[in-house]
C-alpha cells in the first residue's frame, strides 16, 4: 500500500511556508455590504442625472401648459395654468423645485386625472412585478438546465439540432411570439385569456412571451460556458478522481459557467420592468410599461417622470443584486485587498 511514511522528514526550507501569500477571504455578507455602500452613492448620482435629464427633455418636447389647456385653450387660460403649475417661474427655479420634490418622491399630480403620479406608478408595480417575476423564473428554469444539457456534449447530433433551434428562436421577436400565442391559445383553442391581469391563467402567455426572447440568449451563453468549462483542467482532475458525469456537470462546470451568465441575467432583469412595453401593450397588461406608453402619448409628464424614476431605482437594485450573486459564486471577488 502507498500510505505515506508519516515519520519521514521532508525538508521545508525555513521561510518557504511563511512566504506563502496570505490572502484572506472576506465573508459574503461583509463583502456585500461594502459593495452596497459603493453602489448607493452611485445610485444617488444616477437618480440625480436621470431626473435632470427627464426634466429638461420633457420641457424641450413641448409646452406643458398648452397640453393642459387643450386645443380650445386661449391665452388667458394658458396664463392661469402657467401660474397654477408654477410654469411662469424661471426654468432654473422650476428645476430646483422639481429636484427637491423628486427627493421626496413627489412628482405632482397626473395631468390626466389629478391623481398623484407616483401613486399611479406604485399602483401598477405589483402587476408589473408579477410579470417580471414569472418571466424571470421561467427564464432561469428553462435556460439553466437546458443550457447545461446543450453545453455538456455539444458534439452530439441531438444537441446540435437543439442548438440550431435555440439560435432560430433567439431571432424571433417577442411580439411575434405573443401574437402567435394569442392566435393559438386564445383565439383557436380558447384556453387562455389574452387580455389584462385576470389571475394565474392570464399570466402564462405574457410571461412566456417575455421569456421567449430572453431565455434563448441566456441558454446560449450558459451552453457555451458549460462547454468551455467541461474542457478545463479541473474537470479532468475531478474525472481522474472518479466523479460521475453529472457531478462534473452540475457541481463543477455549471458554477463556473454561471459566472459569465450572471451578468447577462442581471442585465435582462433590469431591462424587464420598463422593457416589456410591447408585451404589455399586446396583452393589455396593466403594468408600468403600458402606463408609460399612455402617459407619453398624452404628454402626462409627471407620470412619465415618476415611472422612469422608479424604473431607474429598480434597474439599479437589479445591478446591485447581480453583484451580490457574483460575490456569492466567485470567491475571488471576496479577496481581501491588502
Amino acid at each position, binding site marked *: 500500500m*502507498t500510505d505515506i511514511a508519516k515519520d519521514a522528514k521532508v525538508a*521545508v526550507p525555513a521561510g518557504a511556508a511563511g512566504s506563502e501569500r496570505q490572502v484572506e*477571504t472576506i465573508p459574503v455578507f461583509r463583502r456585500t455590504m461594502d459593495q452596497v455602500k459603493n453602489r448607493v452613492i452611485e445610485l444617488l448620482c444616477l437618480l440625480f442625472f436621470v431626473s435632470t435629464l427627464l426634466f429638461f427633455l420633457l420641457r424641450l418636447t413641448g409646452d406643458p401648459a398648452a397640453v393642459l389647456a387643450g386645443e380650445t385653450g386661449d391665452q388667458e387660460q394658458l396664463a392661469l395654468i402657467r401660474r397654477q403649475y408654477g410654469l411662469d417661474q424661471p426654468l432654473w427655479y422650476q428645476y430646483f423645485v422639481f429636484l427637491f420634490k423628486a427627493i421626496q418622491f413627489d412628482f405632482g399630480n397626473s395631468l390626466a386625472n389629478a391623481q398623484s403620479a407616483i401613486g399611479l406608478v406604485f399602483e401598477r408595480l405589483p402587476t408589473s412585478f408579477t410579470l417580471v417575476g414569472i418571466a424571470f423564473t421561467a427564464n432561469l428554469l428553462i435556460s439553466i438546465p437546458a443550457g447545461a444539457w446543450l453545453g455538456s456534449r455539444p458534439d452530439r447530433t441531438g444537441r446540435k439540432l437543439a442548438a440550431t433551434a435555440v439560435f432560430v428562436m433567439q431571432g424571433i421577436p417577442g411580439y411575434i411570439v405573443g401574437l402567435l400565442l394569442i392566435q393559438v391559445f386564445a383565439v383557436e383553442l380558447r384556453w387562455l385569456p389574452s387580455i389584462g391581469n385576470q389571475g394565474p391563467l392570464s399570466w402564462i402567455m405574457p410571461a412566456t412571451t417575455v421569456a421567449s426572447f430572453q431565455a434563448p440568449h441566456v441558454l446560449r451563453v450558459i451552453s457555451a460556458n458549460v462547454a468551455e468549462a467541461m474542457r478545463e483542467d479541473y474537470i479532468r*482532475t475531478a474525472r481522474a478522481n*472518479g466523479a460521475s458525469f453529472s457531478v462534473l456537470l452540475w457541481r463543477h462546470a455549471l458554477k463556473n459557467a454561471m459566472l459569465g451568465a450572471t451578468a447577462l441575467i442581471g442585465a435582462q432583469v433590469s431591462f424587464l420592468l420598463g422593457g416589456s412595453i410591447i408585451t404589455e401593450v399586446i396583452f393589455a397588461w396593466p403594468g408600468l410599461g403600458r402606463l408609460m406608453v399612455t402617459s407619453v402619448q398624452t404628454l402626462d409628464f409627471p407620470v412619465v417622470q415618476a415611472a422612469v424614476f422608479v424604473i431607474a431605482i429598480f434597474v439599479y437594485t437589479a445591478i446591485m443584486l447581480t453583484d451580490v450573486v457574483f460575490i456569492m459564486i466567485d470567491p475571488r471577488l471576496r479577496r481581501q485587498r491588502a
Partner: protein
Amino acid sequence: MTAIQEAAATGRSVATADTILAVKDVVVEFPRPRQNVGFRAVNGVTFNLNRGETLGLVGESGSGKSMTALSLLGIVPAPGKIVEGSISLRGRRIDNLGLKEMRTIRGKDIGMVFQDPMTGLNPVRSVGAQLTESVMRHQNVTRAEAEEIAFRALDQVSIPSPRDRLKAFPHELSGGLRQRVMISLALINHPEVIIADEATTALDATIQAQILDLFRLRLTKATMIIITHDMGVAAEICDRIAVMYAGRIVETGTIAEVLSNPRHPYTVGLLAAVPRFDIRRPKLVPIPGVPPTAEDIIRGCAFKSRCKFAQAKCDERPPLTHLGGRLASCWFPRGA
C-alpha cells in the same frame, strides 16, 4: 534471482505476483477527419509496474506519455480511445470495464497528479470541498469524518495550518501549495498506484525540489509512474525508465543502465541535451528536427528522419530487443 529482481535488473516486462499494473500493447487512437487511418497517440505500449516500484516515462511533448497515463484511468479525451491492447490491475482487466466500475478505480486504486496546479483545481470550490467530495465518493464515511481525512491529507503533504487551508479557495494558495493540494487529492484514498504527470514542471526550481522531496521521502514504498521530460527528475526518483517517442517505448531499463549507457540514438540525444554539473562538456547538443506530429503517417522507425545513424534498413520498424540488460528498438544501437 527472483523474477522481480530479474525484471528490475533487466528492465524486462515480466509479470509476477508482485505486478500491480500490467500494460500490454496498448494503442490509443484519435480519428483523423476524412481519413480512415487514425492518429495513434499511443502505439503499442507494453510495461509492467511492480509493487513499490517507480517507473519513469520520459520523452518530448507529444511522445504519448500523458496519453498512456490517461488511458490507464480510462480518461483519454474524446474522440480518442483505446483501440487495442489490455490494461490489468492486480490481474484484473480494467480497460474494458463499464463506466460505473471504472469510476470506482479512478482516485481509489489509481491516483493521478496533474501538471498544472494553477488550473487543475476548481476555482470556485474550496480546497476542503474538493478533497471531501473525493473521500466521500470512495469511502463510506460521514462528512465530518471526510473533513478529518482531508485535514490529515493536507497535513501529510506538509501544508502549513491545514485546518485553515480546507476553507481556502485555490486562488488563495501559491503554486507550490496548490500542487501539494493536488498531490493530497491524488493520495487521499490511498491508491495502489500513483501517476504523476509532469507534477513539478510548472513549478519554480525551489518548489520543484520540495515536491520532489515529498515524492522521494514520503512515498518510498509507493508504486508510482512518474511522467517527465526532465531526465534529472527521472534520475532522482525512478527505479526504471521507459523512453517514449512517437507513441512507442523506444528504450526501457533500470535507471542506472539507461542513463549511464543509453543504446537508442534518441535516448543518447535526450541525455546530450540535458545540462549536467558533474561532467565537463563543451555545450549542450540539441536533437535536430521536430518529433512527428499527428498529421504524419510513420513508416519504419519514427526517429529515422532525425537520426544521424539512419540507414536504408530503418524503413523497417525495429522491434524492442534485449540489448545488454535493457530493451531498445534500434537497428543500429549506440554504446555497448
